[in-house]
């Protein structure tokens, strides 16, 4: 241990590079050379990469513990790889370097263990699950790349580096959802995931810009240190110098419109960040991509869309908890959105039959719980749920995958093989899968003593008791104006009923979770097998000897009854990870069992959330109430499901559907949210794009190009008539033109220009012409200097500063015609603030002559 600390000092902890690089190398080798390496090579490479990464993570964790042990401060291990780029702060002042730097503290060390650990198990599982896929190497390349991106996300020491991982996991998710790209549906789902995530990323970009502007830092330490600057007010309206149409509106409305609206920068940052979190962690309103993402292979769903990537949002809230707590309104929004998402997703999950869809909505719902937790300021409780959820949801997904794997023996259609109604009685055929699945199931429904029980109850407890304090003394920002002290903005206060509502929603969600999860389990494992007729000694028809995802449309005639062998248990590569995860689901709760006064996790994470905790108040007590409600919810949900699906064989559910077909359809079709989005967002954007495209073709091109060319053509058509083609016409026109020029030359023009000769000396020079003669009035007395015209063209004038003088000039041409004009010559005032335009340096040469030289480098100002 000591040696380790010596090799890897805390400020240059290169083990982080090892953790990161191994999966990257794995991805590169598998992606580029995978086809030549063969399956064994790819397997070895992928497992070694992630396994090595896991080992390094464990070592890092231990080192961190060592470092943490002695101090109150949160220990950090950092590693700076290289300088990436730099931006500048408010008004382009200062420089904010962005380094490719990584850090490890209690929060992301835990997360890192989960990611690499669960990641390794899922890799192991996948080696069997994807065994026969022709894109085997591609799959592992993507998976390794995902692990790498996820690690960048959680280890990144600044928001931009986190963003790299953030988009990286989105990209991997896109590639993996669309892994079987020959099916249009999968590719579509991938695209949807990417774009919806991008909407969230937009929020993150905006948040970074706000941080740059207000805090002037993007790394975690800097943000935490400068977070108080986020409390300054930001004017939202009117934007810039945009003046609303106040004149067209009634007085009161105009006044209302013109009132400046302020929010704190913290609220804006919080909202923008939460938009990012909602995108990545599938919260309302951006949750729609996650259920569709189940189009990817099941291990992908387990790893990315349940255990790791989707919890990145929660991680981000925890990471920036010190910023979030500055905006109570945003925190309440987060909690409320989390609770609402939990309920909405759970209610959709009731009506789904596709087991992966059920699990997907369950994930959305559980993520809602996590946000509920972090929203009320219980960061470590929320994060604890991330960890336990990673265990049991990964286990559930992998278990589902195991079942689907078994179903795939005879049913090759993806949708049908995942249909719960085709399963049943699997308990008998797949004992290990069954056992592990049940382990994870009891955890998710909150069976006392399991991990889910502890983490969920902790969240419920905090939802009832914890509040965000106003970060401002007095809760408002004031400003001195001429009219006295004025309140610029008043911070939103956490409502008194807030906790009760959130708690109630949480409890309802828990009941629903227990119900639909039990429905799922009963449907899969109990009852009779409904997939096909089981025949002993059944032999596969020749053309079914491969499990090829490239032909998903290889349908059986649905009416023809299928026959096949009994489903069998999956091989060890698949059930071993299941077993490990199930054990963790059952036992993981003791990491943070507050009931038993056992909370190593809270202690471990405590220093990380210390800053944020200053702004959170938690009431004492409520524990027994929560315990009662928690256990009650679990019992109610499980009991109801047992009654409906075991005792009554699903009859009440069918009756319910018959009584209220509309509601059921609604829930089954996900409340038509997708359709509504399609209509409202996608269609309107498309309409806008159509308009833009048409405008581009006809209006812009029409005006800029076609109109211009039209005008030119029209002019050309007009001018054609002038061109007779007859030489003599042209000659006549030429003569006329010559005559005009001649007339101009001979007619008298009293024009003159002034030339500047030297300081104060000006010359007024009359324009020359054929046969011109001039006379002047230089003294301004209205009398000509001499009555006689002469050929004197120039008059000299001397002026002082700011003086001006008017001259009159008369011109007579050869035919005696005259023209007259008066000319004013003025000399500008001496302006001491402005230097001369050019300084002429005067030098006396050795021979006594004096020359003016334009100097090479002279300061401005000149000789005063």
């Amino acid at each position: 241990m000591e040696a380790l600390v010596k090799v890897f000092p805390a400020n240059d902890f290169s083990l982080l590079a090892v953790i990161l690089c191994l999966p990257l190398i794995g991805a590169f080798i598998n992606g580029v050379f995978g086809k030549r390496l063969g399956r064994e090579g790819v397997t070895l490479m992928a497992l070694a990469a992630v396994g090595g990464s896991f080992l390094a993570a464990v070592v890092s964790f231990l080192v961190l513990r060592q470092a943490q042990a002695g101090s109150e401060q949160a220990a950090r291990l950092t590693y700076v790889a290289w300088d990436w780029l730099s931006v500048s702060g408010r008004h382009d002042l200062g420089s904010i370097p962005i380094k490719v730097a990584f850090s490890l503290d209690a929060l992301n060390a835990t997360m890192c263990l989960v990611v690499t650990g669960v990641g390794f198990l899922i890799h192991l599982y996948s080696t069997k699950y994807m065994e026969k896929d022709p894109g085997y190497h591609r799959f592992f390349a993507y998976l390794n790349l995902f692990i790498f991106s996820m690690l960048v996300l959680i280890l990144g020491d600044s928001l931009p580096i986190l963003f790299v991982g953030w988009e990286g996991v989105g990209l991997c998710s896109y590639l993996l959802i669309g892994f079987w790209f020959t099916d249009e549906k999968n590719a579509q789902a991938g695209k949807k995931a990417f774009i919806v995530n991008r909407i969230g990323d937009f929020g993150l970009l905006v948040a970074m810009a706000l941080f740059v502007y207000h805090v002037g830092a993007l790394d975690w330490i800097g943000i935490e240190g400068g977070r108080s600057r986020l409390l300054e007010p930001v004017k939202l309206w009117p934007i810039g110098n945009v003046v609303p149409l106040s004149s067209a509106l009634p007085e009161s409305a105009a006044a209302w419109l013109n009132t400046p609206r302020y929010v704190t920068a913290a609220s804006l940052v919080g909202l923008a960040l939460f938009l990012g979190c909602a995108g990545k962690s599938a919260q309302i309103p951006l949750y729609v991509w996650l259920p569709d993402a189940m189009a990817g292979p099941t291990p992908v769903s387990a790893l990315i869309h349940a255990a790791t990537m989707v919890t990145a949002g929660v991680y981000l809230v925890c990471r920036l908890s010190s910023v979030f707590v500055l905006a109570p309104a945003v925190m309440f929004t987060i909690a409320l959105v989390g609770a609402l998402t939990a309920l909405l997703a759970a209610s959709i999950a009731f009506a789904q039959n596709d087991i992966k869809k059920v699990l997907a909505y369950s994930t959305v719902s559980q993520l809602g719980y996590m946000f509920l937790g972090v929203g009320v300021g219980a960061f470590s409780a929320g994060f604890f749920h991330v960890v336990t959820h990673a265990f049991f949801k990964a286990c559930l997904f992998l278990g589902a995958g195991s079942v689907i794997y078994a179903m795939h023996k005879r049913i090759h259609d993806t949708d049908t093989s995942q249909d719960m109604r085709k399963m049943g009685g699997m308990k008998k055929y797949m004992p290990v899968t069954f056992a592990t699945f049940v382990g994870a199931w009891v955890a998710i429904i909150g069976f006392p003593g399991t991990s889910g029980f502890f983490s969920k109850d902790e969240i419920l407890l905090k939802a009832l008791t914890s509040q965000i304090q106003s970060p401002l003394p007095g809760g408002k920002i004031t400003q001195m104006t001429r009219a006295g002290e004025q309140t610029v903005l008043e911070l939103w206060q956490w409502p008194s009923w807030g906790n009760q509502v959130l708690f109630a929603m949480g409890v309802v969600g828990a009941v629903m979770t227990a119900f639909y999860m039990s429905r799922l389990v009963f449907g899969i494992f109990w009852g009779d097998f409904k997939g096909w007729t089981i025949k002993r000694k059944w032999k596969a028809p020749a053309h079914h000897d491969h499990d090829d995802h490239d032909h998903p449309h290889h349908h059986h005639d649905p009416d023809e009854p299928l026959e096949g062998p009994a489903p069998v248990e999956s091989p060890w590569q698949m059930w071993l990870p299941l077993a490990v995860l199930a054990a963790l689901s059952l036992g993981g709760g003791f990491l943070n069992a507050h009931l038993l006064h056992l909370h190593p996790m809270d202690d471990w994470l405590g220093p990380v959330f210390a800053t944020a905790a200053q702004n959170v108040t938690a009431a004492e007590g409520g524990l027994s109430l929560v315990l009662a409600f928690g256990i009650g919810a679990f019992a109610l949900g499980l009991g109801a499901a047992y009654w409906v699906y075991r005792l009554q064989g699903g009859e009440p559910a069918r009756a319910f559907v018959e009584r209220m077909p509309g509601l059921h359809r609604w829930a089954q079709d996900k409340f038509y949210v997708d359709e509504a989005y399609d209509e409202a967002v996608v269609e309107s954007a498309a309409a806008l794009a159509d308009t833009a495209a048409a405008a581009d073709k006809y209006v812009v091109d029409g005006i800029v190009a076609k109109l211009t060319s039209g005008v030119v053509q029209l002019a050309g058509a007009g001018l054609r008539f002038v061109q007779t083609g007859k030489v003599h016409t042209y000659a006549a026109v030429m003569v006329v033109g010559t005559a005009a020029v001649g007339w101009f030359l001979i007619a008298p023009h009293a024009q003159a220009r002034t030339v500047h000769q030297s300081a104060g000396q000006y010359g007024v020079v009359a324009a020359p012409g054929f046969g011109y003669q001039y006379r002047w009035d230089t003294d301004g007395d209205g009398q000509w200097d001499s009555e006689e015209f002469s050929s004197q063209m120039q008059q000299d004038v001397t002026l002082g500063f700011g003086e001006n003088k008017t001259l009159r000039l008369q011109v007579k041409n050869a035919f005696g015609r005259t023209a007259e004009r008066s000319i004013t010559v003025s000399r500008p005032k001496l302006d001491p603030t402005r230097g001369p335009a050019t300084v002429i340096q005067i030098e006396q040469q050795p021979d006594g002559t004096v020359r003016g030289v334009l100097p090479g480098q002279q300061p401005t100002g000149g000789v005063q």
Partner: protein
Amino acid sequence: MSALGYVLEHYVVLSALLFTIGAIGFLVRRNVLIQLMSIELMLNAINLLLVAYNRQHGGPMTGQLFAFFIIAVAAAEAAVGLAIILSYYRLKASVHSDEADALKH
């Protein structure tokens, strides 16, 4: 009468008359050949002017040089112009300049 031929203005007026005759001839006549001759007339008028001024200024004979080059250019112009007329005549069977309006069409 004794000043006749010894005063610059006489040459200037003569040159102006010649030039005017040439210009009017060029503008009024339709026969390309005669138009070309009118151009020669104008060039000659200019030459006369140049030489006369040169005589008045004395000194270096740049005026005469200029006239020399004008003669050279006039010769070239006559050669090419006549060639064009020949070619035009082949095409149109006419030497009337107002019938040359092919560019318009």
